[in-house]
């Protein structure tokens, strides 16, 4: 009973955005002999709840980010106890902000949510040229590329990436999803991508579907 209560506390720390207590609580739970996979499970449940609160507009961007920071702190303690195949076992996703754009807030939130959802992330950072993405696909065999674009003037770069993938014979091997301030589904399709997500929570949901397809 005590065991369940403490696990529940870990979930609540994520939901309550308690970044100050998460590390020691996770460590205490590990020291008590709890299966690391069970701890990962409650952390993920906590993040799912944060996502729901965000979608209901009860939580805001800084809450979502603080939940991500709390999760990251928890994972620094938990990761050494997890086997390699228990980390990111749902598949590989390439994430990048397009060339000419240095904004990474949206991309980084998506990455935190995807890690929490069980994906392995290849983060190519910001200002990312098409050839870097092609190299990463060849190396990792990732099935989904998530592109972020905040600046209106970099929208066309999405099309450049799509064209480069076609030229490299890789377009039909990957699904491309995009997100960012100037985008919508219409522009996403016009640029030749497969999907668009309105925010990070929506992004995880769409990527889950793309990975199944």
């Amino acid at each position: 009973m005590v065991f369940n209560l403490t696990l529940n506390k870990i979930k609540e720390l994520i939901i309550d955005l308690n970044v100050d207590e998460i590390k020691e609580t996770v460590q205490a739970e590990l020291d008590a002999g709890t299966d690391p996979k069970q701890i990962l499970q409650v952390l993920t449940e906590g993040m799912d709840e944060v996502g729901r609160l965000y979608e209901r507009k009860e939580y805001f961007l800084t809450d979502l980010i603080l939940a991500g920071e709390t999760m990251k702190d928890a994972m620094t303690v938990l990761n050494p106890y997890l086997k390699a195949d228990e980390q990111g076992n749902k598949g590989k996703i390439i994430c990048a902000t397009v060339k000419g754009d240095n904004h990474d807030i949206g991309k980084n939130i998506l990455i935190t949510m995807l890690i929490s959802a069980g994906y392995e992330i290849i983060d190519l950072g910001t200002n990312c040229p098409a050839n870097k993405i092609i190299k990463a696909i060849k190396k990792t065999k990732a099935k989904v590329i998530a592109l972020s674009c905040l600046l209106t003037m970099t929208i066309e770069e999405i099309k450049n990436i799509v064209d480069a993938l076609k030229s490299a014979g890789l377009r039909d091997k990957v699904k491309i999803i995009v997100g960012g301030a100037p985008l919508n589904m219409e522009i996403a399709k016009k640029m030749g991508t497969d999907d668009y997500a309105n925010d990070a929570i929506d992004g995880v949901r769409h990527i889950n579907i793309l990975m199944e397809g």
Partner: protein
Amino acid sequence: MDAPTRVLMAINHDEPDRVPAFESAFTNNTIMRHYGIKPSAGLFAGLKILRFIPFRHSIMRSALKNRKLVAKGLKEIFEFSRRVKLDIGISVASLFPRKIIKNGFIDEYGRIMKLEKYSGDGTIILGYYGGFFKDFDDYESWEQLDPNDEIRIINFLAGQDLENEMKHEVFNVPAVGALMECTWEGFGLENFSRLLAHRKQIKKVFDDRGEFTLEMVKILAENGARLIILWDDYGFKNGLFMSPKNYRQYVFPWIKRICEAAHKNDSKILLHSDGDLMQIFEDIVSSGVDALNPIEPTTANPDYNIFKLHEKYGDKLTFVGNISPVMLSQGKISEIEEYSKKLIKVLAPGGGYIFSSGHSINPAVTIDRWEAVMRIREKYGNYPIKIDE
């Protein structure tokens, strides 16, 4: 009619001679060249040279204290504004570089800013590259902003010199960083979000920013600024950065005091905030903000609609903006014309509207689309507004 009269009449909900026009940022070399302005490398070149010079920070401060030199730096954008009939030219009272770094600087709010050349037409863009402060202790060890630092008022006065030189065809309006945007950007969003969990610390930071902005607005208004811009993004495409409760606790009490101080000195406040502000719109209005820019049309919230907002708040607030930057870079000329016409037709009668894009004019905006907007303003923007169905 001169530009200050035109803008202030619109903000007072009177009808001037024509609908005023404004852009919060104009970074597009192609359009500037089209109107005969040769954009200089300005700050970009200056910082590149300064980085390798001893006593660079003293040299930089000396330059910022030189009213003639500052006026020379502002002249390009003021002259461009005059040529395309934008009524407002912006001088700045904060956001100055504090420390020069490779390709940029750390500004006085702790924001790491870098200058980049847009590959298309060489437009120089000042981009945000993260926060310098890792935590509250870092922030506390930073020398705080002094509203009485003479570089601030000199920049405004240099703008006044230009306004006089241009016979008031351009209205010199000082801009000051306010509470939210400069605060989170100084830390970066991750560190800022962590700081929000510590009530005493975050209150201290917001109060520092509020105190500075309030004093700065008082000084500017006492020195003759009749309109002051507050740079303060509260939201983004999908909503607010932080909860309405936090805004009400930390930000709006200061905005209210700032607006009161401006009004006491016969000055007005134009708030620039991107994003979907629906959940705090009432707070913005009741704080006493006179004009709001840019009412972004590309948010994910269909209710954040300038026409709906105007129906509810049109008598209390001047709306500044709303022509989609995406439309201006990718849209059909006919849809740009129709939308611009609709803005004038619905919002401009009786004053209370300033024509502007719904974000900024960035390098992706094309000349033909920009000219379409200006053409509509020229054709239909004269009072009394007469646009047939």
